[in-house]
């Protein structure tokens, strides 16, 4: 495998700051990023990536390709939770299976953003509408997960259930709303808006990402400890399923005929798992499910796996197939 890809990824400051955060936990340093700074960085990144995607979309406009990609994204976020649910149900409770499958059907915006930094190192771009694809993938997985849990728990009549609540939680949770909103603002204001916001959304972006990944390194590593509860099956799941989903993503990108940059981004969307929107939604909609399972899986294993090993591996496969 082209080792330069791995090196490119490793020598990227954001990734190195992730390692630094991770190391802080291993050596028991008391380094910590106090609340609500992590939330601030996360809101900043969503706003910036949404806005930049919108400005790109303003340039490119909508096309058949765009619509096909968006549909592919939605289908992916519906199919993944279904197939994984039936794998999971053999080993864990229905509620946990539903929550974990929703987690893996949904996406991680930070993985997506880290992939943009990786692409920019390789001087590759990506299309702005993929940000829309990302936003569209968060919600369906949540709905599917909750429906699966309800269907297989039929006996227990839970009178608290409200479709309105579920749909609001799925489609209007803070992160989906902020990304979509910023995207639309980007589309509306185009280059004029981009110019005035660019020092904020572009220039300091990598620095903010580095700072945030420092915290993500701390968080992800702390969560790894919780994995003992998850056991070997779920730990393996958290690596194997993203890989399989990535292959789905690569295949879809190949069939659609996307460029390399776009192919990597759609792959990363398929491969990534949620640790912000979905856990918050599951806590409300499937309260019997255990967040000490799905959060460590997505944040402690799948996220680091994707940004450290996944990115260069997916890129390598794409390079191989596309050339």
């Amino acid at each position: 495998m082209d080792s330069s890809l791995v090196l490119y990824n490793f020598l990227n400051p954001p990734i190195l700051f992730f390692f630094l955060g991770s190391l802080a936990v291993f050596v028991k340093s008391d380094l910590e990023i106090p609340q609500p700074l992590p939330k601030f960085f996360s809101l900043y990144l969503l706003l910036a990536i949404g806005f930049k995607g919108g400005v790109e979309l303003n340039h490119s406009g909508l096309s058949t390709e765009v619509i096909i990609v968006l549909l592919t994204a939605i289908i992916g976020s519906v199919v993944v939770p279904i197939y994984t649910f039936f794998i999971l149900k053999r080993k864990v409770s229905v509620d946990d299976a539903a929550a974990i499958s929703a987690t893996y059907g949904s996406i991680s915006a930070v993985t997506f953003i880290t992939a943009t930094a990786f692409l920019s190192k390789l001087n590759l771009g990506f299309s702005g509408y993929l940000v829309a694809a990302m936003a569209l993938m968060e919600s369906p997985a949540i709905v599917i997960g909750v429906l699966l849990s309800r269907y297989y728990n039929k006996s227990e009549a839970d009178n608290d259930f409200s479709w309105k609540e579920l749909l609001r939680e799925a489609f209007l949770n803070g992160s989906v709303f902020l990304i979509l909103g910023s995207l639309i603002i980007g589309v509306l204001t185009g280059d004029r808006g981009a110019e005035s916001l660019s020092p904020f959304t572009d220039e300091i972006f990598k620095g903010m990402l580095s700072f945030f990944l420092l915290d993500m390194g701390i968080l992800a590593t702390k969560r790894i400890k919780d994995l003992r509860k998850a056991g070997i099956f779920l730990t393996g799941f958290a690596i194997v399923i993203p890989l399989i989903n990535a292959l789905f993503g690569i295949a879809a990108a190949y069939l659609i005929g996307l460029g390399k940059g776009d192919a990597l981004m759609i792959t990363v969307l398929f491969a990534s798992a949620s640790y912000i929107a979905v856990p918050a939604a599951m806590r409300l909609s499937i309260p019997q499910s255990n967040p000490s399972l799905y959060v460590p899986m997505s944040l402690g294993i799948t996220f680091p796996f994707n940004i450290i090993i996944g990115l260069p591996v997916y890129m390598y496969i794409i390079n191989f197939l596309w050339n």
Partner: protein
Amino acid sequence: MTPIKKVEIIVDSVELEKLKLILDKRGIKSYTIIKNIQGKGDRGVKSGDGLTDVFNNVYVMIACTDEEINLFVEDVRKILRKLGGICLITDAVWIKH
């Protein structure tokens, strides 16, 4: 100085809205809230870190009479059964002003 009960409820942060709805519905007009607190219990460690309120608790205190407690205690019990947390009642006196 009037005798009064101090009801203290500690639950998952995501339950706060539901809890406030219950209190409103049951006619409880006054309470105090402390957000972003941590803890440990049957449902694991609430470390307060992370990017969501999933691993956070909230504290709600209601100073009220025994009759008022009866209005909402069953609803609270239901929440606790589902999502964990605790509810303590203490005797206190209220400095009337």
